[in-house]
């Protein structure tokens, strides 16, 4: 039941009607409708996944209550650790078991010892990384007294299974979601209208932009050795467009659905491809995940390292910089691993870490250089060049994200640097796709100050003119959408 499919539309109309017309005066009933809907939605993919979701939700609910019951930290710790083991253990079993076993076997075989390994055919439950992260943040926040353990079991189950965000985020943490779940939602016309517009833009991004890139990206990446350099650059560019339009499109739809149900779900993308530097990019891309890693990985690691090194310098390296390097390396290795059990993701994560470290190291020299050459930091051409540079390095790093393995990614990149880089790509493409991509980025540029690109367009226009704008988007979807249904990329994470 994809968000962009007819069964989902029918499902949502039914949920919306029950939620606002039948159970609109009672909080418990509102939440009950959402809980049942969320379990139906999730079970639609595979009912067996429901058992795991229920187990994780219930475990965290019960352990959080135990944590809050105990006064002393030492008494709380066993429950906290138990919850962490359950959450992380589940993730490892379902997502990383075979990967780690393979890795271990390879490591042992390096020493010349022959090992026969046992791997299992484990199905990866959809959205597991997302709801496990919700659970981890919940249990940590409760443990750190930032959040009260929820007493109502239905509220807890709903927090971890809320259907707009369960499959691919945004990872709207319980600390932000629970207060909304525990308050009766009253229909807000403006919020609902904004939700509809956001869904419309999300559908355009997914069905017109992302899905139309899929065919070209798949052909080029699948058979990259038979294409010339410029075609490989084109493939990397189209994947760069695809992954953004796909994931940000999904997030827009999820947030829009949340708004229709009276929820404010956190923004997940803030026009990342218009970022001037890599740090800025990661502040704008998949914000719910990056802030999660910042709060639950980077800061604790940095805090821990800073506690261990008391001197100002450590082997000639500035301690502050060392702390940053350690925190970033661990965080980005885990961020990469979070995306999937493949070395490509780990390498991709480490590349982001290296970019960020370089950026961090270059901040002061850059400032000095600009001062020396009398160049304003706000110079438009300079901003444009920096933005283009950031986009280019991001595009190259996506090659690791998309490739089947690290070797192929390296070959792909080396294939780019040949003389055919300056020739015409030897793949026939549809000019309309590029027109649509251009139109898409123009709208995104003009709407970049808004929560989503079309949020502010036409607000002061006469109603018919504004409606016409939305109808044009609907028409473009109808005329140019891809008819090959592709699942959202982030579903596999």
């Amino acid at each position, binding site marked *: 039941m994809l968000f962009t499919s007819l069964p989902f539309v029918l499902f949502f109309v039914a949920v919306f009607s029950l939620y606002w017309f039948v159970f609109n005066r009672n909080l418990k009933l509102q939440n009950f409708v959402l809980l049942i809907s969320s379990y139906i939605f999730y079970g639609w993919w595979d009912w067996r996944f429901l058992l795991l979701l229920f187990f994780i939700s219930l475990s965290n609910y019960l352990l959080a209550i135990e944590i809050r019951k105990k006064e002393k930290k030492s008494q709380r710790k066993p429950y906290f650790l138990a919850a962490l083991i359950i959450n992380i253990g589940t993730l490892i079993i379902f997502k990383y078991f075979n990967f780690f076993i393979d890795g271990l076997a390879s490591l042992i075989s390096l020493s010349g010892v022959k090992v026969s390994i046992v791997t299992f055919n484990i199905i990866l439950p959809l959205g597991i990384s997302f709801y496990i992260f919700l659970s981890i943040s919940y249990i940590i926040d409760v443990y750190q007294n930032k959040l009260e353990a929820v007493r109502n079991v239905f509220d807890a189950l709903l927090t971890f299974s809320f259907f707009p965000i369960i499959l691919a985020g945004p990872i709207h943490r319980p600390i932000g979601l629970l207060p909304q779940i525990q308050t009766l939602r009253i229909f807000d016309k403006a919020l609902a209208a904004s939700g509809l517009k956001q869904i419309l833009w999300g559908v355009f991004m997914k069905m017109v932009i992302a899905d139309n890139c899929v065919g070209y990206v798949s052909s080029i990446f699948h058979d990259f050795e038979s294409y010339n350099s410029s075609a490989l650059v084109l493939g990397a560019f189209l994947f760069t467009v695809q992954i953004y339009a796909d994931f940000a499109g999904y997030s827009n739809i999820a947030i829009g659905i949340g708004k229709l149900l009276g929820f404010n779900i956190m923004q997940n993308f803030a026009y990342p491809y218009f970022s001037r530097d890599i740090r800025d990019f990661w502040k704008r891309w998949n914000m719910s995940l990056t802030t999660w890693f910042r709060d639950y990985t980077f800061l604790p690691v940095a805090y821990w390292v800073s506690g261990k090194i008391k001197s100002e310098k450590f082997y000639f390296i500035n301690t502050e910089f060392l702390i940053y390097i350690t925190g970033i390396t661990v965080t980005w290795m885990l961020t990469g691993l979070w995306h999937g059990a493949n070395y490509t993701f780990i390498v991709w994560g480490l590349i982001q870490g290296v970019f960020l470290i370089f950026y961090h190291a270059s901040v002061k020299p850059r400032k000095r250089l600009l001062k020396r050459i009398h160049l304003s930091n706000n110079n438009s051409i300079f901003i444009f060049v920096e933005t283009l540079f950031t986009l280019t390095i991001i595009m190259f790093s996506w090659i690791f994200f998309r490739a089947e393995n690290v070797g192929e990614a390296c070959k792909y990149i080396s294939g780019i640097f040949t003389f055919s880089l300056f020739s015409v790509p030897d793949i026939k493409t*549809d000019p309309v796709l590029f027109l649509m991509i251009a139109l898409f980025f123009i709208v995104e540029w003009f709407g970049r100050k808004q929560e989503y690109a079309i949020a502010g367009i036409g607000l002061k226009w006469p109603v018919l003119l504004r409606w*016409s704008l939305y*109808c044009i988007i*609907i*028409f473009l979807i109808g005329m140019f959408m891809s008819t090959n249904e592709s699942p959202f990329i982030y579903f596999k994470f």
Partner: protein
Amino acid sequence: MRSFLLKIFLFTLFTIVFYCSSIILWGELLQNPSYKKNMHYYIGYYNAMSFRINEISDFKKVDILFLGSSHAYRSFDTRIFSDHGYTSFNFGSSAQTPIQTEMLLEKYLDTLQPKLIIYEVYPFTFSLDGLESGLDLLASDRIDLQTVKMVITLNQVKAYNTLIYAYYRQIFNRNKKLKKVYTSGDNTYIHGGFVESKLKYFSGHGSITKDKLVFSHLQLEAFAKSLNLIKSRGIPFILVQSPVTKFKYQSWINTKEIDSCFLSNGIMYNFNNLLNLNDSLAFYDADHLNQNGVKIFCDSLIRIIDRKGYVNKTKPDNRQNRKPIIRF
């Protein structure tokens, strides 16, 4: 909430009008197909289905009605059947799937009133979504409730967009001045529905990719409905698999399963087993018979019809003094 729902309702109405108008404008103003990704309207595309539909009134109460895909309109030569004393009409069309066949039968069976129906069951069409043939019929046939029903069954945006544009053209009679071309490239349309190809020989052998044909449940449902409709009118029918090259036939790994599926629905003649045709001499491509193959196949089928007495001939056998073929 009430005002929100009212606005949604008004916006929906506005969107319907806006969308339909845009489709019409887009269809009229832009000729390049890449700018009309999800709309495909072309009269006489692939074959002359519109000619067949226009000729229906000339073929009422024929002895034999042929249905099916290009394997029907390129294999059942109505002139050969006429020579043997059978009046016939070939209602095949490119990639015609059971969904389209059902629609055609519901629309025209009572007008045509054939004495026998020969339903050509090319297995591959049962695994298709039916869009290609659906678009062909949207451009060739009159739009009515049956057409809308077919489009809903196809449930694809391309079909919906083309339906809107086709209906506009029908309402404003925009197809009136279209020039009729009966010969296109190597193909000549013959009065009665058959399409004759210039004599060529198949030479394209290569490696065979073995594949299992999986039938769509929508196509099987439509197939069952079509047969029920035929039975309800009391018209006898036979199912025929017209021959394809051995090269092609061997690429399907589940032919026995396919045959038993068809046999469970009625009498079926699989000419891939009944005839031993040479791929190079009797076909012009991997799928279609050339005119030599057509002659062998039709003669063989007619012998079966004669022997089994499926239908009484309207005309006397005319093979001795065959008239020259009239081409349009």
